[in-house]
Structures are given as structure tokens and as C-alpha cells.
């Protein structure tokens, strides 16, 4: 990374903490600590390294013992890995948070209106604000959803939007996750652990609580109950123990006190969905599904899926069961559609976006494609429908071979790719090998959309644990840290 600015100004445990062009969450450009970090900065200077190591051990052990793991695909057995949790909290001021909250609420409202419009009249397409072919060529567009009434028009009930902080300090949206976003359990567990490890610091700082997430989620799901159903039976549908987020599914089901079901537990009969229990079949009214659209019903979508429940889609269409999120929401988090979100907000709400997008080039546009391919080493190129850090090229950190490979892929299927300038994500202090070192971070708050929009103050701060790395996904060597939003 670029040269150090004010290294000499930083005291004892920060020898390796050189500032660079990225925004630093803790240290202002003049070398002093930002006000919200004052207490942590103090603690870092006073606590001996051995003490940090001890607390790190406590943290690691509690993650290990709770079995907080995720699965890495594409490797042999023993792929259950402990999610690395960094000890130092990432701190956000109340003013910053208010803006984020406002921006996210605005965004999810607009995206839900967009989805409703797309699957009904399609006004936004007729008005030429979003190109028709962009929507219809999206692999997550579900024609089966055309004209289907979604309960309370809540298409995206749970969203996890990835924010990054620009070198200027401004929070911008990097991507929307509107299908089955995960990671919220790490946010909740890491908070529990932090409260145990840094009780004093936690109190001094004055941190807003996030523990009500599960109740809020349950209330949001309950509100989706089909018409006339006052005491809905709500279940969480998981692909099963081999899924990377199984821990989270089990965790949330337990927190909400609802049944954790697999596709094979569900039975469709006369357009109603039941689960097989030892007492017989029990009607299911709301399904918080953590299975992708493709796999949810082999009769309506992928026939080779054994994860879903045959007949589920018909019951859904008949309005006898509600799904959260609705099917077909992936069209709105397509990375090419993303480029149009500011226009979408303007179109439906008549407002300017509170949170800006990252500048995005559509590879389907010949001019933009040419521009990017000329200097691909400056850009991040992403496949539009992928998530989890798979299928992307980080220009400045790529090899010539990888660049050629991506050029070829982009030429072959331009609709499937977008490019964004490489942005230096903001950095936050982490404890690495007993020393305080800066690592790049993003922020994924979780948004619950229903009769009202709930965003618990905080989210999952993901950390690229490798020095200099900009990839924060857990499957690619990322970790997490607790996020403190102050009062």
C-alpha cells in the first residue's frame, strides 16, 4: 500500500500502524484518535499485550465451544471452520448511524416497490428507467412470480446490505443482498462474547443494544401470516446440516423458538403446506426460507433439487403459505441492476438516495466494456449473480493470467459482468499476532422490512484478515468483529 503519513505520531503498541490513503476508522489523518475511539485507544495503550492475548483466547474458545462454524465449499472433509472473530470493536457514532439507517430504509422501500412493479405492471420498464432486457436477462428473474400477489407486498423481508467507507469517510452501498443474506448470527454471538470480554469498555462507550433482533425478526415474520390466520405456525427452512450457514439457521430457530425444518419435513396437500410431526401433519403458515429460489420446489424450479418441498410453489401462489423472502427477489440484487438503484429510488420515492452507490460499469454496454477492458488492472470485475466473494477479479492484485481469463469471460458473456473501480475499503484496528494492525473492513447491517422497517443498530463488520487484502468474505479468509453503534 502507499506510503506512511504520520507514523512517528503514533505511540507504543501502534508501531506497525502506518496510515495510508484509506480511511482509518480509529485514527484521524492528524494522528490523533477519533472521539468515538477515545476509550478503546486508551485501553489499547494501557492493557499489556499478554492481556489481549488472554482475552483473545477467551473469545476464540467461546466461539469454538458454541460450535460457531461455517463450511468452505470445494474442499475435502473437515471443512467446518471456526469463524475468526477479532477482539477490537468497530465503532460508529450515532450521527453516522442515523444517516445509514435512513439510507437503508429508503433503499429497501424503493427496492420492494421495484420488485412489485416488475412482477406486475412493469411501469418502470415501460417508462424506460430500467432497460427491459436487463431485467429479463437476469438469471434470478422468476417469470413464475408474474402477477402473483405477495403478502403485504413484502418481497424482501430480510436484507443484508454491504456498505463500505470511502477514503473520504462517506458510507456507500457496495451491494444489496436480497435473497437469503446470512451472517446475522455472528453479529449476535460476537456481541455476547464482547460483553463478557470488555464489560468496562462497553459501558464507558455507551453502546446501543442489538439483542432484540430475533424478536423483531419473529414479529416481522408473524405479520406475513396468510389472511385470516391469527396464530401462524412459523418455521425456518434450512437446506440441512451440510449447508455453510447451518449454524445460523439452528441458532435463529432456537432464538425465535420456531421449528427448524428441512424440505423433507414438509408435505404439500391441496395447496396447503404441512410439516410431518410425531403428532401428525401440522399446518405451516409462514416459512423463513434459507434455501435459494432454484431449490425450493422441484415442481416449479430445478427438478433435480432434493432440498425443497414439491408443491410448495402452488401453495404459495394460492396464498396459503407466505415465504420470506419472496421468490424472485434476486433480480433486484443483480449487480448490473444495482447500477440503476439510485434511479429506482428517484422513480418510486421522488427522493435522492441518502447512501450513494459505488461507480459501476456495465459490461453489456460496449462503450463501458471497452473502457474497462483497456485497463482491467484498475478495476474489480464481478459476476452479477454471484455472492460470497466467488467469481470476481481484483485488478490490482491479479496476475496477468487471471486478467486474460476475465477478459475472455467478459467478452463471452458481457451481461454477466460489471466492473467497479478498486476502492480502498476503510481500515479498522485489529489484534494480529498480539499487535495492533490495520485491516480493511466493510459493514453489513441487517434490515427487516414489514409494516415498519427495523434495523438493529450495528451489523456484521467483516474483516479481510490478510494484510492488504480487500476481500472480506468468510469463505475467502475473512473474519468479523463486533460493531458498536454509540448512543
Amino acid at each position: 500500500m502507499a506510503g506512511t503519513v504520520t507514523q512517528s505520531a503514533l505511540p507504543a503498541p501502534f508501531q506497525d500502524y502506518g496510515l495510508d490513503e484509506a480511511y482509518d476508522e480509529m485514527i484521524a489523518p492528524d494522528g490523533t484518535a477519533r472521539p468515538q475511539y477515545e476509550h478503546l485507544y486508551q485501553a489499547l495503550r494501557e492493557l499489556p499485550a499478554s492481556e489481549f492475548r488472554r482475552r483473545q483466547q477467551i473469545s476464540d474458545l467461546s466461539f469454538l465451544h458454541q460450535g460457531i462454524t461455517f463450511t468452505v465449499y470445494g474442499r475435502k472433509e473437515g471443512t467446518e471452520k471456526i469463524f475468526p472473530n477479532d477482539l477490537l470493536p468497530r465503532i460508529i457514532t450515532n450521527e453516522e448511524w442515523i444517516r445509514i439507517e435512513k439510507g437503508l430504509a429508503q433503499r429497501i422501500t424503493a427496492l420492494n416497490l421495484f420488485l412489485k412493479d416488475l412482477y406486475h405492471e412493469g411501469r418502470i420498464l415501460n417508462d424506460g428507467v430500467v432497460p427491459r432486457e436487463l431485467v429479463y436477462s437476469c438469471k434470478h428473474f422468476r417469470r413464475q412470480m408474474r402477477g402473483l400477489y405477495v403478502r403485504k407486498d413484502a418481497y424482501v423481508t430480510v436484507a443484508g446490505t454491504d456498505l463500505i467507507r470511502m477514503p473520504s469517510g462517506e458510507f456507500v452501498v457496495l451491494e444489496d443482498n436480497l435473497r437469503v443474506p446470512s451472517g446475522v448470527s455472528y453479529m449476535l454471538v460476537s456481541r455476547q462474547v464482547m460483553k463478557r470480554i470488555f464489560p468496562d469498555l462497553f459501558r464507558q462507550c455507551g453502546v446501543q443494544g442489538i439483542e432484540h433482533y430475533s424478536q423483531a425478526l419473529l414479529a416481522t415474520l408473524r405479520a406475513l401470516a396468510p389472511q385470516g390466520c391469527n396464530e401462524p405456525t412459523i418455521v425456518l427452512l434450512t437446506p440441512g446440516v451440510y449447508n455453510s450457514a447451518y449454524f445460523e439457521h439452528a441458532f435463529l430457530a432456537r432464538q425465535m423458538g420456531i421449528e427448524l425444518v428441512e424440505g423433507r419435513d414438509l408435505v404439500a396437500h391441496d395447496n396447503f403446506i404441512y410439516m410431518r410431526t410425531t403428532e401428525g401433519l401440522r399446518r405451516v403458515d409462514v416459512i423463513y426460507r434459507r434455501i435459494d429460489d432454484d431449490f425450493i420446489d422441484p415442481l416449479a424450479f430445478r427438478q433435480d433439487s432434493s432440498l425443497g418441498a414439491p408443491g410448495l410453489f402452488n401453495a404459495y401462489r394460492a396464498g396459503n403459505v407466505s415465504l420470506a423472502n419472496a421468490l424472485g427477489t434476486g433480480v433486484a440484487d443483480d449487480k448490473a441492476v444495482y447500477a440503476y438503484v439510485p434511479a429506482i429510488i428517484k422513480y418510486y420515492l421522488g427522493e435522492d438516495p441518502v447512501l450513494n452507490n459505488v461507480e459501476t460499469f456495465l459490461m453489456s454496454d460496449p462503450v463501458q466494456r471497452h473502457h474497462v477492458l483497456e485497463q482491467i488492472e484498475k478495476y474489480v470485475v464481478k459476476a452479477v449473480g454471484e455472492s460470497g466473494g466467488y467469481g470476481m477479479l481484483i485488478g490490482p492484485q491479479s496476475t496477468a493470467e487471471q486478467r486474460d481469463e476475465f477478459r475472455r469471460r467478459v467478452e463471452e458473456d458481457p451481461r454477466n459482468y460489471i466492473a467497479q473501480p478498486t476502492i480502498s475499503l476503510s481500515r479498522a484496528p485489529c489484534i494480529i499476532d498480539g499487535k495492533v494492525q490495520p485491516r480493511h473492513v466493510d459493514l453489513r447491517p441487517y434490515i427487516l422490512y414489514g409494516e415498519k422497517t427495523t434495523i438493529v443498530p450495528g451489523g456484521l463488520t467483516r474483516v479481510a484478515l490478510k494484510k492488504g487484502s480487500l476481500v472480506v468474505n468468510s469463505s475467502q479468509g475473512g473474519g468479523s468483529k463486533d460493531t458498536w453503534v454509540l448512543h
Partner: protein
Amino acid sequence: MLSRVAESLYWMSRYLERAEHTARVIKVQLNLMLERETEDDDRHWKRTLKSLGIEMTDVKEGEAQATAKSLIYSTASRSSIISCIMAARENSRQVREQISSEMWEQLNRMFIEVSRSGADEASDVSDFLQAIKDGAHTFQGITDSTMTHGEGWQFIQAGRSLERASSLATLIGVHFREFYGKNAEPEPLEWIGLLRSCTAFEAYCKAYTADLRPDRIAEFLVLNASFPHSIRFSADALETAMKQIGAEVSSRRSARVERIAGRMQATLAFGQIDEIMTGGLQAYLETVLRQCSQAHGALYQTYIAYPIEAALA
């Protein structure tokens, strides 16, 4: 409770019971070998295999001992101890949220130990078998003291009792067919072996003194009401579990499986050993086995794999 969860708990428990039973029978056999003529080895191992319910058609002449050994470590054999532990762990993994974390940890620990010794040529067989027995007992203790004694726990009891009743019936049947009523009285060693295979030697001596008489041994292993490794005890436990589950789910469909378990329990509770021996112990044990498989079938049809129509009506 979800049917799938009940199914996993039931099988977790059955597999673990099977692993423990196999470990005990092989360990006793290994011990007896020390005092026997070596030329009879093949015959003895054959009987051991038969008493574990292994089909003899699969076993070639002179290979009985090797087959028996494969029942310990071989992952290729589905009835091997190692396969049973793996199956028990896999079942518990599916329902990890429904069992206590202590239970999961114990099973996982057993699995790790078993896989490690399986891979290690130098590991001691006897120690290994002992570890299985200890591990299974520990698991049972942990289960009883850390899990709510609700529906799930009852399915665990049902699985264990059914597995135990049927494996005891097989074991006792094979032993009596071989050693009972022949002209030459078998050495007491064989009867001690049978009792030990059921952890019953000490308990038998307390009840009847060390005078080993086949009809008394049969009475003890089949009809004793208070010894945990008797068929009667297992049938009692099965019936209790079925009644509790029935009460818990309050479904009228549960009547059939309760009746089957109740009938099996009553047959044993009112059985007389002299009548049984006169009428033929083998036939009696056949009936027990048939009732076990009926109970299993009824449990499945009632709680786990019922047709949708039955549940909607």
C-alpha cells in the same frame, strides 16, 4: 416434534446400543479364546458372528475370525462398531439442536477416538472395545442427566430398548441352540460367556448363586424384571416409552403401537420359564423377534413415515 427429529434420535440410540453390544460380545469371545483349544477357533467365531445376527452365507470357511475382526474396525461393514458409531454420530449431528451439547460432545469424542484407533495398527483391541463400552455408558448417563425427559428422550429409550431386546433374543437363541439339550454338557465356560455377553454374570450369581443351570440362565436373561440386560426389562422400557410418547402427542393413532408394545411386555411379564422351555425356547425367541420388528414397524407408521391421508383424516 418433527418426525425427522424423532427418527434421528431413535436411530442414534439404536446404533449406539448396537455398537456397545457388539463390543461386549467380541470382547467376551476374545477372552474365552485364551482358554480354548485353538483348532475350534473357526467354529467359535462362527457362532459369535451368528449370535450378532450376521448372515453366515457371507462368511467363507476359515474366515470367521477375520470377519469378526472386521466387525470392529472395518468401515466397509455396515454392522461394524466403527460404522455404528459413525451412524450414531451422523444421526445426532442432524439433530444437534435437539440434544444437549454435552451429549453431542460425548458422541463426537467417541467418534474421534474410534477413527483414531481404527487408523492406528498398533492400537490394542481390548482397550478399544473397553473404550466403546465405557463411552456408551457415559453417553447414557449424560443423556439421562442433561436432556429433558420429554418426547425426544422417550424416542431414545425406545430405540435402545428395541435394539437391546432383539439383539438379546438373537444372542440367547444362538447360544441355546448350540449348547442346550445336547448329550455332552458344555463347559461352564460357555454359559459364563453368555452371561458376560449380557453383563449378567454377577447379577445372575446374586440371584441364583454360581450354580450355572441353563433353564435358570434363560429365566434370568429372558424374564427377569429388574435386570437391565434382560428381554423382559427391555420390553418394559419399550412399553413405558411408547405410553409416554402416546400421552405426549395425544393422538389416537398411537393406540396401535402402544398395543403392540403392551402385548410384547405382557407376554414376557406373564411368561413361565418351564412352559417356555417345554414349548421350545427357540420358538419363543422367534416370537420376541417378530414382536420387535412389529413394534419398529408400528412406530415408523405412527410417528415417522405415515401416509399423508392417515394424518389428515
